[in-house]
């Protein structure tokens, strides 16, 4: 049974490695399909000094299907539901490959805390705060860490400083502002792609679509596509 063998090996590997700050244990003795993992909050972020517990359910088809993970510890983060702990991370969905391990997934979660993806949020309200008021966001996240994720083993090396993290949030705010034209005007990306594939520049396409007041065009709707083409070429 390769699945049991693999999970056992993964548990062993994590036990051997004390540096990563990741732990992995069975939730109940003898049940390899339900595990609990923990990792420490990455330094230089509002999550520093916290210990986060993750609930891990291993499906029958593991490692060909990804493990099902959710946070047991409450956490304030754009890609994690503040209510249920559900996680929005590509490697736990489509981007999973059997070569990834539970340890590498936990480390990915750790780095997700370091660099949130507000464009693909799980918790819209948290993401909104992250983009509009990074300072306040950081304060709240730090507060939540103190309350919900206390770590007895944590020895602060000095004053927690997460100005860099806040700066990152501010820069994402800017990038968001000027790059995503499609999102700005609510235009369907796939529609733009149809015309991009024909070799037209994106700004011209968006301009034409806006002029015609179109948000999307169906792939098989030739008549409308022709109209857009006429507009682009005019």
């Amino acid at each position, binding site marked *: 049974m390769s699945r049991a*063998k*693999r999970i056992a090996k993964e548990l062993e590997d994590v036990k051997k490695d004390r540096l990563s700050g990741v732990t992995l244990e069975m939730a109940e003795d003898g049940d390899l399909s339900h595990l609990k993992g923990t990792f420490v909050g990455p330094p230089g972020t509002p999550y520093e000094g916290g210990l986060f517990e993750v609930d891990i359910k291993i499906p029958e*088809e593991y*490692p060909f299907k990804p493990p099902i993970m959710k946070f047991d510890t409450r956490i304030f983060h754009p890609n994690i539901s503040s209510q249920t702990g559900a996680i929005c991370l590509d490697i736990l969905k489509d981007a999973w490959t*059997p070569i990834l391990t539970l340890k*590498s997934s936990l480390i990915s979660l750790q780095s997700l805390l370091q660099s949130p993806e507000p464009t693909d949020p799980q918790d819209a309200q948290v993401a909104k705060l992250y983009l509009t008021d990074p300072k306040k966001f950081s304060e709240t996240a730090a507060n939540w860490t103190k309350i919900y994720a206390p770590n007895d083993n944590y020895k602060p090396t000095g004053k927690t400083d997460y100005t860099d993290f806040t700066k990152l949030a501010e820069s994402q705010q800017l990038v968001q502002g000027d790059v995503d034209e499609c999102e700005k005007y609510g235009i369907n990306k796939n529609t733009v792609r149809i015309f991009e594939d024909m070799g037209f520049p994106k700004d011209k396409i968006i301009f034409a679509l806006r002029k015609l007041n179109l948000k999307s065009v169906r*792939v098989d709707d030739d008549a409308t596509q022709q109209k857009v083409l006429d507009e682009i070429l005019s």
Partner: protein
Amino acid sequence: MSDSEEYEGSYEYDNSDEGSSLEFSDVDYGDDNSLNELEHEDTHAKVMFSFPTSTTSSGIPTHRMKYQALCIDEIQKCIEQKVKELSDLLQLDIGKCLVLLLTYGWNEHKLLDDYVNCKEQSNLLLEHGIYDKAFPSNLNCLLTKETGEEVICSICCCSPEPSEPMSFFSLFGCRHKFCTDCYSHYIQTKNEGSQVIIDCPFSDPKCTLKVTTLELNVLSDFIEESIKQPKENITQAKLISEDEIKQLYNLSSDEEQFDSNGNVINQFDDDKEENEREVTSINDIVYDFHKAMLKREREELDSKRNRTILSKYWYNVSNQYCMTQVKRFKHCPYPDCESVVEFLGFDSDNIASIEEQISLLLIPLVRCGRKHQFCFACMEVSHAPCPCKVVEKWKQKCEDDSETLNWIQSNTKDCPKCHSIIEKNGGCNHMSCTACNYQFCWLCLGDWSSHTNNYRCDQYKGNDSLDGDSVRASLERYMFYFDHFNNQRISHDKDREILEKFESRIRELQIKAGVSWIETVFYKECVTALLECRQILKWSYAFLFYVPKCRGKQLVEAAQWQLSDKVERLSKLFADTPASEVLACKKSFLYIKSSMIVAQEKFLETCIDIFADPTTMISFKRRLNIT
């Protein structure tokens, strides 16, 4: 003449399909065979039309659509050819070309553009996950036998035992080796998710090399080699499924025949015993058998698809190909039917698109490889003679009106004078209309003043005085057509239910009588034709509801009556002929069927002819609120 042959052709096509359903195990998926089969298929391809003739007998053009009924395997052939052409052009392996086409979303022009214009072609290929070297002649180098304990498959964490070497697999030009079990399992998981672009599983850092059909071929062959047992089982199961038919019918089992196939038989025997316990009447057995047949057909198809990871992969690719070209390919909307219909243009130069055809109130009716008829535009089950727009309107009307209608019907009457709809709000029968102040009797709708003190409501003369403008009159008109529509729907469903049961019964008789199954094909044809005509009649009422009064309408009604007469005659023949005499009555079945088909064609033609008069067309469109 040639057109009617076309129709016959589509029947023939289906029959041959049915006959070959037992030969699945012979189909080979190797790349070598595909070329020969390609040529073979080309001669087979048949162009079909959405209407039997290019003009009606009175010379009105039908602007029919050209199409081709395909099955998924034929789509695969078509893709294979496309890939082959590209491969000749770019001097690249077939598998790599397929990956390129997939990553470019089948946009060949952009692919060629990029390929020709880029400075370093190997970079472009690498960008799309293709290793830029021709495959070596010995493809087995992808498979290696490893021994040492230091080798480990990082998916299952297994290492080879000292005594027994383990097989490992890697993509061509890729450093990442995994054991063959894990690799094939990985691809199977991707296949189940219908993913067609499959990366090497390695992810740290991400390996972007893509799995190609050549590699899948090597892997599939290897798996098949190592597990020969299941392949034999498939043929065994087929043997029994044939004999099981006889077993079921004779209800006696001669098990000696199957002694050699131990496991499989026992399983089937169990099934049969269960059936015998539960089932009481022969009719139910037959019906269950019919369902079981369909299920088995489905399962056989699935097992053929899932036989190797390569065949499943090709199936996914073919489906993806159709999905990306929604205008050209449409999947048959019937449940469990996998056929595809390819749009081939029109045989008339006057129209260019389906939209244009629909705007002329014509219907692009197509028939998939398994004979299911549906509309290529709205993907509804055949709704001739109604244009799509009528179907939409009619369905909406039925939904909107049915409840209002019920309530109005049961709770209100019209004022005999002004035709306002009146709800009775008290017990007294003396009504006074709030709109026109007319005094009348609720029971007889007569003038209240002519009522003497005692109620004698015998002055009822019927409601023929109602003129066309009143709400009730239009509701009644709608009710009339809706009733007839609904009647036909019910008849259609009932006929289908009974005749499907019957059909298996006929097969039973055919086996008993010892005649070829071809002798019974007529029965199925008659059933299909009858059901289709019922479908046409059903929609004809919705159609007539919207057709304005005109001379053409009378012609349509006359043709409709003709068709309806023939349909009822055939339906009666079905009902009156006991199963045992069906084979003997073949001639009368065929005779009535052919006269019904004539009536059907005539009827559909009159439905098109009616719009030759522009004023009819305009007022019809106005009724539907289209311009």
